[in-house]
């Protein structure tokens, strides 16, 4: 009991520091994911005091100092295929423990659709390692897809969280829970497969290519329907084959990366920014404004409002006057 009291007091004192540590990890991960052009929701925090105490009650072999995951960081991705790249990225920036792939640990007929968990700490040569010594500051990093997150969140407070809570239930109810877990897993797999299979139409292929650059600039979600519409409109402005267009846009992005990053940084504070800026096809618009502003203006005005195009042009330093 005294141990619990002391742990509670120590955690109330230590927690703000661990919370800062979590935020540093979040910033590092966000920056790296951006660099790779992977969209993700990244969040992190130090555990609540209740959570620490609960862990000590449930796992009596632990004491305050032996609890490794006082900080937690979570990465939520859209597609399962992205998990591998993200884990590689995580291994490159942190000292990592063993990957614990929870779904692999499940028997065929067991319930639960969970994520990858890894214990991480800063590398000894990390600039922040002095402030957050790796021997003291560790965090549990969870990497999961949106579907895995859905299951995790929905089951968190429910009786079907794990097999132990499920066992006492009548068989028909258990069966429904297994089916539900299966549906979520199938949905996750299908989203992943569809993402890989869908892009045969030029506008889809181009949107995917543009998103790779877009997510290096922002984590804001865009409107895909609008993206496809704009891409369809602007595609005739290119005379090359699709593959060439993508290469050209990659080149254009690399050449203008500094300006583009600056424009997105400033746009965060501009309430009057164009609605098309936070869309992946903004790169395509900028490309055409740069090379052939007359044609894009002519074409744009057949479908959209010119004021919006001028806003985006002005953001990239281009005048219509």
């Amino acid at each position, binding site marked *: 009991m005294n141990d619990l009291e002391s742990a509670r007091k120590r955690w109330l004192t230590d927690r703000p520091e661990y919370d800062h540590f979590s935020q540093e990890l979040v910033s590092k991960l966000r920056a790296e994911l951006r660099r790779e052009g992977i969209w993700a929701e990244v969040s992190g925090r130090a555990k609540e005091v209740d959570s620490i105490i609960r862990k000590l009650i449930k796992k009596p072999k632990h004491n305050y100092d032996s609890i490794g995951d006082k900080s937690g960081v979570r990465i939520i991705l859209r597609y399962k295929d992205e998990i591998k790249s993200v884990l590689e990225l995580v291994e490159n920036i942190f000292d990592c423990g063993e990957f614990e792939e929870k779904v692999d640990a499940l028997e065929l007929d067991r319930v639960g659709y969970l994520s990858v968990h890894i214990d991480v700490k800063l590398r000894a040569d990390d600039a922040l390692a002095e402030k957050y010594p790796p021997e003291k500051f560790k965090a549990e990093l969870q990497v999961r897809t949106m579907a895995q997150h859905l299951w995790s969140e929905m089951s968190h407070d429910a009786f079907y969280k794990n097999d132990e809570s499920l066992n006492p239930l009548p068989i028909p109810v258990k069966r429904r829970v297994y089916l539900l877990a299966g549906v979520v897993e199938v949905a996750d797999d299908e989203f992943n497969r569809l993402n890989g299979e869908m892009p045969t139409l030029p506008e889809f292929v181009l949107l995917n290519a543009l998103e790779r650059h877009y997510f290096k600039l922002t984590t804001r979600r865009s409107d895909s329907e609008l993206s496809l519409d704009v891409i369809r409109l602007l595609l005739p402005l290119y005379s090359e084959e699709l593959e060439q267009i993508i290469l050209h846009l990659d080149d254009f992005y690399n050449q203008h990366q500094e300006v583009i990053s600056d*424009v997105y940084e400033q746009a965060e504070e*501009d309430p009057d*920014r164009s609605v098309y800026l936070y869309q992946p096809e903004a790169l395509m618009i900028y490309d055409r404004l740069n090379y*052939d502003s007359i044609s894009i203006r002519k074409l744009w005005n057949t479908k959209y409002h010119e004021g919006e195009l001028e806003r985006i042009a002005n953001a990239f*330093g*281009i*005048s219509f*006057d």
Partner: protein
Amino acid sequence: MVTSDDLAKLKIRHIIFHDIPKHTKGTEGTPVLADLETEINADRSAMLKKRLVQTLGSKTAYEIEFNPDTSSPVPDEVKTHTDNRHDIKKFIKMSQNLAKHLFEEQNGQNSAGLLCVMDVVTGGHNALAVLKLEREQGADLQLQNVKGGQQFKMSVLDNLVFTDGTRLFKSSLFINTGSGEFRSAVCDSQRSVMASTDMGRFWLKYLGCRVTVEPRIATQRWFDTTIEFINDHVTDPIVKNDLYEHLQSELKSNKKKVSPNKFIEDCFPDNYRTEYKGFLKDKGVLLQAFEKDVSDITSKITRKLLRTTKGVTVTVPADEDNLVEIKSEQILIRDPLQTIEKR
């Protein structure tokens, strides 16, 4: 030249306004000087930046340089201010000097206006933007007393700065790129900064600057580069001929300036625009407007027209007289046939 990249990356650090009343001959008067910067929120800052992009990136913006013969104090103020990151007091003092000089330079012909000085940064380079916004005579502009001094509040200036009417203003931007080098541009949305009248040249004179490229050189460069493009890159003979004619008529027209951007828009077919624009950029030819001066290419754009009694016409470049020989019953052309087209 100030580029679109410079304008895209531009960030406003400080801004100050001074009121410059009309300076009629024989009257004393003084400019109304603020001694505090005007605080602007992100919204206003973004709008001001947009105004700078619209004017200084426009077809009527010109590349300028400091005129070594000027007596204007503006170049020295700009150099000193942008050489180092300075404190706000020095910025305010410098802006007041610019305002006093503007007031002294103005006469009864110049409208009253607000001088707006902006301390800006772009791509890591210190820069200064100097603008004059016209305002109606008699508009009531009061300095606001705030702690530590007096300033024009943005709320008072909103109508002057952000209404569509105020697209009409004089602007300039000086980017200190290091080692005494500057990229600078000027725009006067009311009149050409290259006009021959004193009024037209007023803004350049006030700034102590001159337009970088001499009009006759800019005109020749553009003409030669365009001819090279038409000769080497345009394959369709009909388009080729049309473009030659457009080029001739552009240079022979009464227009006082040439805008390559406008020329592309009006005369070039869609499929050649991007290539031509890239070609001009590669050759370092301005896309922005420049004053037209054909004195160095007169012989190239003047053509001799020979017309026969039955309606045959032959045009010959004026400086290639030796290509044709006129006999009593015939015209002899000493030049191999390249194309035949039906029109």
